[in-house]
């Protein structure tokens, strides 16, 4: 999946919850107020778009610090 499409999905999750959209990849997810359950929601929205399940360990989620890490993660997971 394209990076921009993943970012759009993240921002859909953010704005649905009344939060500011993310514009800077280098920002820490914590500072962007993007929480671990938001990560899961993005995964589920991507699953719906792709029509297949994405399964991964919680360890993979724990290693995510920045928005760039989220984008890298989903780019790889959907490749």
């Amino acid at each position, binding site marked *: 999946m394209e990076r921009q499409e993943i970012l759009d999905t993240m921002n859909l999750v953010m704005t649905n919850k009344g939060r500011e959209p993310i514009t800077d990849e280098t920002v820490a997810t914590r500072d962007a107020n993007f929480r671990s359950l938001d990560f899961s929601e993005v995964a589920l929205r991507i699953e719906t778009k792709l029509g297949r399940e994405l*399964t*991964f*360990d*919680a*360890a993979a989620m*724990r290693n995510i610090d920045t928005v760039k890490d989220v984008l890298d993660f989903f780019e790889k997971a959907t490749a």
Partner: protein
Amino acid sequence: MHTNGQNIIVSGGSRGLGLHLVSQLLKNGNKVATFARTRTPEMDALDKEYGDSFHFASVDAVDADKVNGFVAEVCDKFGGRLDSIVNNAAIGQDQLLMHTDLDTIQQIVNINIVGPTILIRAAIKRMMLQGGGNICNISSICGSRGYAGLSVYAGSKGYLDAMTRALAREVGEAGIFINCVAPGFFESEMSSVLRPEQLNTIKRRTPSGSLSNDENIFKVVDMVISGTTNMQGQVVFVDGGITS
């Protein structure tokens, strides 16, 4: 005074906590048999050191025929009696349920629920006929407290706790004592997914200030299978007080 002179089966004794339990029980003068899917060098070392007092076989805990065969083989080798079993073999989980595939869920249910049930069933048949015995199920604090990423594993440990209470009622009168030992997190391959920061957070939240270790857990297991406590159908926490 340690448990000694017993014939004991410990499942999953090839490494981790199970290996420590097997080693200590052997050291204290028991005959011990264990199984796991893969033989480890430690099994060869125990074979060499303890000869006929030790028995290992490669058995998958979910293969009922193999487990029943193992129990029969051990009883023959050790002279007929089966005094105690310790249900220790299990696999962990580190995934949120929504991101866990169905095969993994099935595998956890099979190994952590069906596996111990098969072994307990085989053991209580022997214990009924010989007039008693001791069953110790290694559960977890996850069976009673919530931890994200461990839902299916937690359910499997809650099953062990609940089954223990039911079986205490079912077979207690036959002199079979069945209890659970529920450790908090301790260091092993299973908990290696936890990062040092997470382990430190757990330690900080633990009243005793330290994680349980293999030896802490062994001491309680040893007491539970001693057959001297009149403890029945209980879940004993060995967790430094984190669930208190």
